[in-house]
């Protein structure tokens, strides 16, 4: 399959990357614009960042987004690991059933999941707000953690856990000292997926929120009706946070590899 790059294929690649990154570059560039215009760049300025940091709605949206993402990631990672390990020892019927139900939110359009949760919360008379958004995020994050942990569990030798317990480890010790260290890469990637899913979510959050609680996506949606370059600054912040998170996760294994080789 490896052939020299021809000119048409080079053009295709350049156009593709241009298409993908032009809007992102545009947002970043115009977040430094010194006028309100979204079409003409008239000079460099940090005023939209100042506006963003002094805008309490924006800052609370950023805070809510981060707090929810962190808690949802932590909870869904722990629950996801425990459930995935439990399932790996369960009967096939149980395993299949849980997998099928887990798949429902993935196969359903987000809007359907969103309205379902909206009706659930109101059926239980839970006030919409921070708590409902957090519960919803935990709900859609857990399947992603399980999806990345389960393959690692499958490749584990079940005898090692038994051996640990024969040697006197309690099931909890066996879990913590034997199983978890071996599935660590799966846990890390699962947690990362959960974090970005939660951080970026719009549709489900939009339906289950209330009481003035907004995450970044909801804020961008409600503010985008009017011209407001602070959204560009906020978007740039989002881009930077996600890029750094991805960078860390992608680079850490490479650096570790290099150190090992030395």
């Amino acid at each position, binding site marked *: 399959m490896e052939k020299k790059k021809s000119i048409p294929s080079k053009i295709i690649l350049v156009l593709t990357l241009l298409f993908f*990154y032009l809007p*992102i570059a545009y*947002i970043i560039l115009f977040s430094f614009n010194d006028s309100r215009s979204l079409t003409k760049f008239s000079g460099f300025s940090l005023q939209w960042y100042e506006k963003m940091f002094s805008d309490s709605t924006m800052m609370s949206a950023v805070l809510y987004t981060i707090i929810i993402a962190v808690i949802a990631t932590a909870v869904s990672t722990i629950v996801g690991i425990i459930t995935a390990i*439990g399932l790996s020892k*369960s009967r096939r019927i149980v395993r299949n059933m849980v997998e099928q139900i887990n798949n429902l*939110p993935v196969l359903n359009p987000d809007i*359907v999941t969103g*309205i379902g949760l909206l009706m659930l919360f109101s059926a239980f008379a839970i006030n919409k707000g921070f708590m409902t958004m957090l519960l919803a995020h935990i709900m859609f994050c857990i399947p992603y953690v399980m999806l990345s942990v389960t393959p690692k569990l499958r490749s584990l030798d079940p005898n090692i856990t038994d051996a640990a317990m024969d040697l006197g480890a309690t099931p909890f010790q066996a879990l913590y000292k034997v199983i978890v260290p071996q599935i660590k890469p799966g846990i890390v990637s699962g947690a990362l997926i959960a974090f970005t899913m939660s951080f970026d979510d719009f549709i489900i959050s939009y339906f289950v929120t209330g009481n003035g609680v907004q995450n970044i996506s909801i804020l*961008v949606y409600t503010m985008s009706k009017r011209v407001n370059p602070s959204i560009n600054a906020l978007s740039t912040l989002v881009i930077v946070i996600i890029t750094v998170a991805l960078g860390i996760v992608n680079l850490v294994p490479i650096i570790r590899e290099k150190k090992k080789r030395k």
Partner: protein
Amino acid sequence: MKKFRSMTYPYIIWIAVMIVIPMILIVFYAFTVEGNSVASIKFSFANFIRFFTDVIFLEVLLKSLYIAVVTTVVCVLLGYPIAYVIARLPSRQNMILILLITMPTWINMLVRTYAWMGLLQDGGVFSSILSVFGLGDVQILHTDFAVILGMVYNFIPFMILQIHTSLAKMDSSLLDAANDLGADGAKSFLKVTLPLSVPGIVSGITLVFLPAVSSFFIPKLLGGGQYVLVGNIIENQFLTAGDWNFGSAISLIMAVVIMISMFLTKKVDVKASSNGED
């Protein structure tokens, strides 16, 4: 072993409450009419009758399907060559490009759609480019084109990645064999590469069509306030009009439409792969 098994019980209760009950609620609401105090529950098809007898709703459903189908077709036509070119690169560049294409999908869809709002505005980057060709007055924002462009932008990475995976798995000796047997480039592509990548195309179609049919913020941001697709009606019923019964019925109709489309696509897949084996 028993102890490990019991670790799943909390989650089973959790998904019963958080996933199964909401689905039941949607079906329940769809088949009832307003006034849901437990004593006066009335099963009825009124919501469905209302939808299918109103020309406006049917037009919106058709329009949503039309936009989603065009988006999916464009994603296949553009995504295939891109995936093909990437799959033929040396493995290192291959990896970097796949990473570069995955990256934007991690960044908030809403932020990226908002970016297009600025790019497509009158006097924006896009119309300045068009005015070079003497098309300066063409309105782009708030048209079908803008909505489809926004959807293609958001969803094409899924298509590229799926097709790329199926192309990368392909055994390249099959191509050598085809060449040895006298097939030219075009022929070996049509007879070998294309049939083998059909499963990738099909799963790509699923991943593009599903969000395209149900999207509501892309039409709202890029199509403008007057632009209505099925997703916008559902949003409106739940958050503005407050008619959950009708809203649930519409989402159920949408879910059925999606299931039928998936079924048809899968059928094409089976047919195509059995042709490939001839």
